[in-house]
């Protein structure tokens, strides 16, 4: 049941935002000790290794370059939150099953875990699954593995492109445009 969007929710949102901004500093103290995920989840059970996997996948998708990457922006925690809150039960189950299949696949292919793979191996793994996902008929990878990857990829990019960092530093989101130009020459740079 949804409660009205009260100040409490706003505070939660701001707190989450603070977590995202200050996330890198917080991480070492709150992961691994308990073997539990560092984000509070209600519906899916994620341990520290699994969280690390999602983190490494997200970082492979949006790596740190000369600009922040997925871990800097805590996108893996956003992915887990969205799976936990916004996916159907079936997608959550497929996500968990697909994650196991993904781990098995990487172990089989490289004899090490995803986290121990180098960047090239990681990228190739994700790209080959993504490629296979474009062919609805292909059975090269199990369907649930593709569901798992699709969710991680989609929510990582969703989290990235709707992050404060992206919407203030990469593209300009205007809360108050204050104008509508119906005829605007393409040559000029628009805001979003």
């Amino acid at each position, binding site marked *: 049941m949804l409660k009205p969007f009260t100040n409490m929710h706003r505070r939660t949102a701001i707190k989450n935002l603070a977590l995202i901004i200050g996330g890198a500093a917080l991480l070492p103290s709150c992961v691994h000790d308990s073997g539990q995920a560092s984000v509070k989840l209600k519906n899916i059970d994620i341990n520290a290794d699994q969280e690390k996997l999602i983190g490494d996948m997200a970082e492979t998708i949006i790596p740190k*370059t000369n600009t922040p990457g997925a871990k800097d922006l805590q996108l893996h925690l956003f992915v887990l939150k969205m799976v936990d809150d916004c996916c159907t039960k079936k997608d959550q189950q497929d996500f968990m099953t697909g994650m196991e299949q993904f781990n098995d696949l990487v172990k089989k292919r490289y004899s090490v875990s995803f986290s121990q793979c180098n960047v090239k191996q990681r990228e190739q793994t994700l790209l080959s699954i993504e490629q296979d996902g474009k062919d609805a008929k292909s059975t090269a990878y199990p369907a649930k593995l593709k569901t798992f990857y699709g969710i991680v990829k989609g929510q990582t990019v969703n989290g990235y492109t709707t992050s404060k960092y992206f919407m203030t530093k990469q593209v300009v989101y205007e809360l108050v445009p204050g104008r509508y130009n119906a005829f605007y020459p393409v040559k000029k740079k628009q805001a979003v």
Partner: protein
Amino acid sequence: MANLNIDSVKDRTFDAIVIGSGMSGGWAAKELTGKGLKTLMLERGRDVKHIKDYPTTNMYPWEFEHRGEMPMAVQEANPIVNRCYAFHEDAAHFFVKDKEHPYVQDKPFDWIRGYQVGGKSLLWARQTQRWSDFDFEGPSRDGFAVDWPIRYKDIAPWYSYVEKFAGISGNKDGLAELPDGEFLPAFPLNSVESYFSKHVKNKYGRHVISARCAHLSKPNQIHLDQGRAQCQERILCQRGCPFGGYFSANSSTIPWALKSGNLTLRPFSVVQSIIYDEKKGKATGVRIVDTNTKETIEYFANIIFVNAAALNTNLILLNSTSHRFPNGLGNDSGVLGKYVAFHNYSAHISAQYDGLLEWTTDGRNPAGGGYIPRFRNIHKQETDFLRGYASGFSAYRRQQRSWDGVGGSLKENLVKDNLGPWSVGSHMMGETIPKEASYVALDAKLKDDWGVPLLKISVDYDDNDEKMKKDYIEQLTEMFTSAGFTNIKAESDHRAPGLDIHEMGGARMGNDPKTSVLNKWNQLHAVNNVFVTDGACMTSTSCQNPSLTYMALTARAVDHAVSEMNKGNI
């Protein structure tokens, strides 16, 4: 003790009572208080104060926990309201959740409600068009429902009156089927909308005009006096606007009424029934349940306006029974609750245009783009269905940034400018024919938390709607094709009635008390101090968005009510 009771009754007595605080209730309160009447406004939900109670209004996308998406648990618990286009994380707090006020769907009906001060006026799509005599004369010309007891000339001055205060942007287009109003400057059509407008005018003699909407494109003094400011093109209206850039009861009529000192606003007040006094032969007040204390309280007044939103107005009237009116207040005719209709929004069409690529737009258009007034069966019957449809029309370009791949190249693609071609879209807004078989009634057994019977809704499409939809798809497809649009996709979405949020009728106006509930002044034929000026009063639906007509009917009815009261007739 006796004195206490007398004092208590006195405290609960007003000159007028308005049931409901939304689009039309806000107008009733503004007009009544403006004429000096001490007025009580009853709202079943909580108070929503302008600006103060818009918690999400200044939030950035990244400040929403799920970036706007509704959590699955909420979606699954609310299959009905979840189908509404505006039910997202930024405005969900203004919608009634499915379990909060259940109803019985004799046939599928998505009843979308906003139980708070301001009602759905916070959430509406703000499209405002006048009716013409092609609409008011529709039922009599085409032989359905009953004749409207008014014509355009009766309401035209009241359209002007409410338009000036609410602030309506638009162009004077000079169309008989869509009369011009008192307009603030229109939000212009963009390059492709203008191109399409010229094309269909030349080829078909049809019109694509700037959508007329309740936004302050350029405020006048009267709007500044309300504390409102120019629309800032945010298009986040459903959150409540901190500028008062669009018209809502919260930003406009209610604060105005409060400023008069004559308004008492009482939220958390569910109206059970209107009290009818057999000896006096009129209504004397209303009976409410305070939703916090569960206490039943009676309030008294000489004039009662029922503006609870179309279906809840029917519910209140049906539940107001007495020896004189065993089947609901003013229901001598037996038509109360019947002839409910709506707007058919169940088709839309999208396409692409590869021309005019030297142009795009900048900022956002609060009007949403263009509006195609009804072009079918205006002067005479010319199709195999009755009446017609208006259509929305808009064109836009988006950055098409590829999400393909991973790594540094993906990051680059996500910021690379790649302006797509023009996307164009249209949606259907069809008039539906009120029928006796489309009705609302009280459920015989089930009651809500406040002891009021649940409303049973039995409203459906008919053959006329199907034929009209087929025509909309054919005509718009042809117009799109001839304009050179490609990749044309028409879709029929089989939505239930109600999702249009334009439910109307049940207490229709008419000349004959035997076949209608209200007279030409929106007054119950049989109880002359009770007025209904929300969607329940509608004899037919036209295809224009209805809110502006409710506003005008309300101001007109208050003027009549107070003048009759002053003459001693009420």
